[in-house]
């Protein structure tokens, strides 16, 4: 075992000095390789962390949201529907929600307005998300004017700017009282945007949803699991979009790496001949080439992954923000919680390190099987 370790040590030692001899070429390769891993890892880390974040946010969400449908569109739901739902065994904490969107022509942005169950600031007051506060330069105590459904102006006072910790979901959010909400949108008393309910037993969620549908045929119950799936699909689609764009870069790299790795120069061939002539076996030469490929690809992989980690979790993904976070005018600025999936890192490893290492070994194997006496004739 000791001999084996010493052998690896000696061969690695020689490999490193070999790499140092072709500094320019290897540094260029290392940079391109690192950049590629960095881009791919950034997309992976970011979409994964976002998905994780979304699922954490939704953890506290109700199990079922009931929407009323009219002509295939989401319609307001009468409060009387809640009585029918409360009668279903297993359904609890049934209440109506009021929320909607308000287009601000000044900012050309959509705000999400929501009436919380326990709004403590009272009528005439609102709490706004950080995105709105930032873009409108509006802070606690300032007034914010809206245009009502009938064209009349409506002025509300900002009582609080929401905590930046929840910015992913609250950047464009305005919390408002029920009465102000109904006045702003002209929504009749007793009507709600949708109804939410909690189901104590997780196994009964689908059954309760089925009962709601049966009791109230013009409604659409949406389960939390369906929302999570939708989030997943959206993030998968967006990351897929980036990966498609990056595939051109990947292809360019593959050609570059193949050319570098497969095309042994005359000097490299001669060197392999010398090594064989002085007593190296074909397997020793391949071992050296294996370490060479591994050193280049592993260093690039680690550097790329590390840079991507910093990019995603410390610089707010400056490069891909517009595509991955959404198209809204009010981009949330928030720090993602670092979360990396071992499966993803392993996939990236096998897609980058393994092909390159193989590409390095194959041409050397061809060169290493030649008779060493070619050196005598050079």
């Amino acid at each position, binding site marked *: 075992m000791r001999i084996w*370790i010493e052998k690896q040590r000696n061969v690695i030692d020689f490999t490193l000095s070999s790499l*140092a*001899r072709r500094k320019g070429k290897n540094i260029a390769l290392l940079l391109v390789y690192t950049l590629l891993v960095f881009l791919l890892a950034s997309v992976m880390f970011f979409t994964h962390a976002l998905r994780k974040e979304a699922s954490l946010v939704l953890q506290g969400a109700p199990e079922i949201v009931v929407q009323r449908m009219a002509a295939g569109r989401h319609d307001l739901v009468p409060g009387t529907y809640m009585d029918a739902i409360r009668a279903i065994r297993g359904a609890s904490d049934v209440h109506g929600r009021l929320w909607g969107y308000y287009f601000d022509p000044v900012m050309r942005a959509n705000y999400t307005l929501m009436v919380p169950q326990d709004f403590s600031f009272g009528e005439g007051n609102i709490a706004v998300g950080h995105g709105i506060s930032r873009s409108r330069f509006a802070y606690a105590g300032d007034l914010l004017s809206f245009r009502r459904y009938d064209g009349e102006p409506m002025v509300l006072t900002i009582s609080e700017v929401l905590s930046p910790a929840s910015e992913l979901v609250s950047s464009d959010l305005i919390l408002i009282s029920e009465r102000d909400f109904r006045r702003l949108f002209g929504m009749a008393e007793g009507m709600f945007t949708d109804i939410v309910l909690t189901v104590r037993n997780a196994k009964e969620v689908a059954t309760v949803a089925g009962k709601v549908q049966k009791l109230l045929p013009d409604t659409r119950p949406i389960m939390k699991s369906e929302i999570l799936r939708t989030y997943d699909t959206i993030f998968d689609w967006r990351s897929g979009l980036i990966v498609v764009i990056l595939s051109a870069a990947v292809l360019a790299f593959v050609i570059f790496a193949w050319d570098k790795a497969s095309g042994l120069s005359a000097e490299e061939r001669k060197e392999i001949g010398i090594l064989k002539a002085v*007593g*190296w076996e074909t397997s*020793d030469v391949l071992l050296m080439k294996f370490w060479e490929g591994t050193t280049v690809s592993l260093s690039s992989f680690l550097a790329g992954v590390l840079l991507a980690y910093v990019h995603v979790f410390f610089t707010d993904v400056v490069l891909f923000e517009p595509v991955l976070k959404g198209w809204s005018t009010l981009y949330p600025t928030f720090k993602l919680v670092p979360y990396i999936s071992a499966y993803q890192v392993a996939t990236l490893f096998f897609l980058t390190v393994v092909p390159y290492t193989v590409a390095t070994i194959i041409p050397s194997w061809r060169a290493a099987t030649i*008779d060493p006496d070619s050196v005598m004739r050079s």
Partner: protein
Amino acid sequence: MIDLKDIRKVFNEGKAHALTAVDGVSLSLEARQVTVFRGPSGSGKTTLLSLVGCMARPTQGRIVLEDREITSLPERFLTEVRRSTFGFIFQQFNLVKGITALENVMLPAYPLGESHASLKRRARELLDLFGILPRESSRSEWLSGGEAQRTAIARALINDPPVIIADEPTAHLDTKLSREFMDIVARLKASRKTVIIAIHDPLVYESPVIDRVVTMRDGRIEAAGP
């Protein structure tokens, strides 16, 4: 020590441009002697050296090394024989460029798994033996002809092989350096090494250190010497 039996080596056999480099050579080489193969260019000296040194296989015939027939050995075993039995000094020295003289000397021993510190110590001892220790950290391409050759000799000796094979070792040396080389050969002989040299330099084959001169022409032995 080394018996060659009816050795024949044909390059590109069966093709229009086939070339017979060695043609029916039978010879016995004694241990601890300095044997020289001499002859004009193309006489088959280098090919014969590469066959003796297990660098290539003969097309026909057998080579026996200390009662062991080595011609039919698989590549791996042949490499092992080459590594443990022969040290090579090439005409162009064939030092690996870009690494130091010391690293070049250590190179043949890397796959053997000797500890780096002990290997380095032995390599430095060899460089010291040939008076080039002060140049140990110099890259091989910065060495003069004489220094490069002495580095190549040190490399040939790192695995302490019983046989040293040298192909035209003085081809790139002036008279003074060629004489120094013959001094080294004398030291090798004194340390009970078998030395086989292919040369057409009279300074070498007329040297008193040489025990036997084998003359070759057109792939055959013209005179096998005493």
